[in-house]
């Protein structure tokens, strides 16, 4: 342990702690921009400068380790004015208009300028040129607003192991961008939006569908229905001042109704459906291998995270057969809304507009994939991120905090707790295990609270083994089999998992979520998401699950009805047409 003083307050911290972290411990917040939780400090932005007694120059607190007897001062005139100059310099090069910026009121640079009392920008420098990149369905980049903090580079390279963004060139004319300062579409970007989630300013954002959705809502000839992903309810509240991890399911439904959506449905419903289809698919693959001696692709990979699909298609195309053919819950919903539901109402599909609210930017890409039009037209029309929904609620003048609770509509709104946990890393796997185990043995999963403990939490790669005993006659070939599963979140962890598979590790089923923490940490969630926020959202989702009477997907009565009335059986012909898809190899270089 090391003892030091910060602003004359003594503090004891483990060796290797940075001055920044030590200050936080005693309630002193030093501003940061390039700092990235859990990653090697860059020391690039200098906005975290502090004075250390005996040191000639000011020190960047994010990259200065504590030392015994060190005396740190964060609030001297010198330190304050140095930090102020750094921010002023950034503002002098910044090409943005706060009042019309996507990040107005939600911008770290704007915040810093306010905090530091900058009223006038004395420095007049060359202003960065605007350079707007709208080449992808998911994201918009504007290099004019970029302050070159490189957080997006860190997240894209180290957390996601994709490497689409990197500083290009040098000096003032350098840019944080894809290869050769070109557009994002020219490189292998998976559209996860983690760069947009960590960007402190308005330089990377989701491509807004807000105007399109208002237009649909304003059109009296359209029936506009909305589905909400499980992760929204545990995060939307943050945009209205609630603590992270506050569940706002009921208020969210009321808000959506007040916005004018004709029906408010739940992506959870098709999450339950996904479990039935995907669980059956896994059992079929196992049967084909063990009983029929066929060559089948194992492990089976989950397929609900579109960034992960892109990742496999770009970087591991030899594994596309391993991906479950199940569409994601968003796309299953879209397909059913424009077939099953439209037929139920005797509506023309052109009259129905399907909007999704997703924690994800890659969903904007997914809904535009050419495979996603089982109804004959694009199944899901528009995708709003959690942040965009919050904006619409504000635009409509709805006082969110005082809203009463409402319930989702029928018949695409009822769901089990197993569907809720799709939002969490490890959740899809747990939901699948709850159902598969019961199908095979006829008994409930014998685990406390139905949770598969080793698959919970924020470890990057998690594994579990489950011995199957006492099988039903149909499934006797699985008697005594040890079901081995693995879970990864954040694509750098997916790479680790691939490595272990290539080294001979054998799994039956693997869940990968593109974003750290799973969907609760998606690229479209309220900013700023760090591990403590992730933990709280995870806990909220598990609470939502445990609070439900219905905990298993196969017990959802509306799902049973859907099979009876419409789909026939899991993996049947109608299912195949509406709920399943295929994948392709994608070129990395374009």
């Amino acid at each position: 342990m090391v003892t030091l003083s910060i602003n004359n307050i003594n503090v004891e911290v483990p060796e290797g702690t940075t001055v920044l972290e030590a200050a936080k411990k005693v309630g002193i917040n030093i501003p940061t921009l390039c700092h990235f939780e859990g990653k090697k400090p860059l020391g690039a932005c200098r906005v975290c400068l502090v004075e250390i007694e005996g040191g000639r120059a000011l020190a960047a607190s994010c990259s200065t380790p504590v030392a015994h007897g060190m005396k740190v001062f964060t609030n001297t005139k010198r330190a304050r004015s140095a930090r102020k100059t750094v921010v002023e310099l950034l503002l002098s090069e910044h090409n943005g208009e706060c009042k019309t910026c996507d990040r107005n009121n939600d911008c770290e640079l704007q915040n810093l300028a306010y905090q530091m009392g900058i009223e006038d920008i004395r420095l007049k420098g060359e202003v960065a040129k605007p350079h707007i990149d709208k080449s992808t369905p998911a994201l918009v980049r504007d290099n004019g607003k970029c302050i070159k903090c490189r957080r997006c580079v860190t997240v894209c390279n180290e957390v996601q192991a994709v490497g689409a963004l990197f500083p290009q060139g040098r000096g003032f004319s350098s840019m944080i961008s894809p290869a050769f300062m070109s557009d994002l579409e020219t490189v292998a970007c998976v559209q996860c939006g983690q760069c947009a989630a960590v960007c402190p300013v308005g330089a990377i954002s989701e491509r807004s569908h807000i105007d399109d959705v208002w237009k649909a809502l304003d059109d009296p000839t359209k029936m506009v229905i909305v589905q909400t992903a499980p992760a929204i309810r545990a995060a939307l509240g943050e945009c209205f001042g609630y603590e992270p991890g506050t569940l706002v399911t009921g208020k969210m439904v009321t808000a959506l109704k007040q916005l004018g959506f004709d029906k408010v449905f739940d992506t959870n419903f098709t999450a339950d459906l996904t479990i039935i289809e995907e669980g059956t698919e896994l059992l079929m693959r196992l049967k084909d291998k063990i009983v029929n001696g066929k060559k089948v692709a194992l492990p089976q990979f989950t397929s609900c995270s579109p960034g992960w699909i892109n990742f496999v298609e770009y970087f591991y195309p030899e594994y596309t057969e391993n991906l479950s053919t199940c569409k994601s819950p968003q796309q299953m919903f879209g397909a059913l809304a424009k077939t099953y539901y439209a037929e139920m109402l005797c509506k023309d599909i052109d009259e129905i507009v399907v909007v999704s609210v997703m924690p994800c930017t890659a969903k904007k890409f997914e809904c535009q994939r050419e495979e996603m039009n089982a109804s004959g037209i694009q199944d899901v029309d528009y995708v709003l991120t959690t942040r965009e929904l919050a904006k619409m609620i504000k635009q409509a003048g709805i006082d969110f905090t005082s809203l009463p609770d409402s319930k989702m509509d029928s018949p695409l709104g009822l769901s089990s707790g197993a569907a809720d946990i799709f939002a969490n890393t490890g959740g899809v796997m747990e939901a699948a295990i709850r159902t598969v185990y019961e199908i095979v043995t006829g008994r409930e999963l014998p685990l406390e609270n139905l949770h598969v403990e080793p698959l919970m939490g924020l470890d990057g790669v998690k594994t579990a083994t489950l011995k199957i005993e006492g099988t039903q006659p149909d499934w006797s070939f699985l008697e005594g089999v040890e079901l081995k599963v693995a879970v990864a979140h954040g694509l750098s962890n997916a790479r680790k998992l691939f490595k272990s598979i290539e080294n001979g590790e054998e799994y039956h089923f693997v869940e990968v979520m593109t974003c750290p923490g799973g969907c609760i940490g998606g690229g479209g969630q309220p900013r700023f998401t760090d591990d403590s926020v992730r933990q709280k959202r995870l806990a909220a989702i598990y609470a939502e699950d445990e609070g439900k009477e219905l905990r298993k997907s196969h017990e959802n009565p509306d799902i049973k009805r859907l099979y009876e009335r419409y789909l026939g059986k899991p993996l049947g012909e109608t299912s195949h047409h509406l709920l399943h898809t295929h994948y392709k190899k994608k070129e990395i270089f374009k």
Partner: protein
Amino acid sequence: MSLEKCPECSKEPTEDELLAQFEEILDGYVGKPGGLIPALQTAQKLFGYLPKRVLQLISMKLDIPYSEVTGVVSFYSFFTTVPKGKYMVRVCLGTACYVRGGKDVLAALEKELEIGVGGTTSDGLFSLDVGRCFGACGLAPVIMVNDETHQRVKPEKVKEIIDFYRDIEMTIIKEKAG
């Protein structure tokens, strides 16, 4: 590794042949940390510049994202992704040439060719560079076009020199056209 002409036919190797050659060399850098810059240097020596597909090959083989590879290339001014022109124009900026107006000659060349130092004209004919003393200080200022030296160059004479090479090219084109 140097770029040798084929001893038998003395033909320049094609870019495809070089690529195959380079792929073999690249194997030596696989799995070695810090291999990117040496690999790029070798490639530049071999090809004279860094073609896109070479950068893509490096990215794949060394398992470094393409954007990072191009980021490194664009950070260092000694890397270029544009093929060198047929005529390499080099301006001496050694002390003697500098004192006697080498800088003005350079400025005149930049204007005439419409490129900066390190650049290549869009028709691929000329590249412009500077050098330190070509050993002809008595005849300063000096410029070299490939292996030919031009002495006591005045800014006004620059166009004449460049036109001389342009004329050669015109003749070649005409001959080819028959």
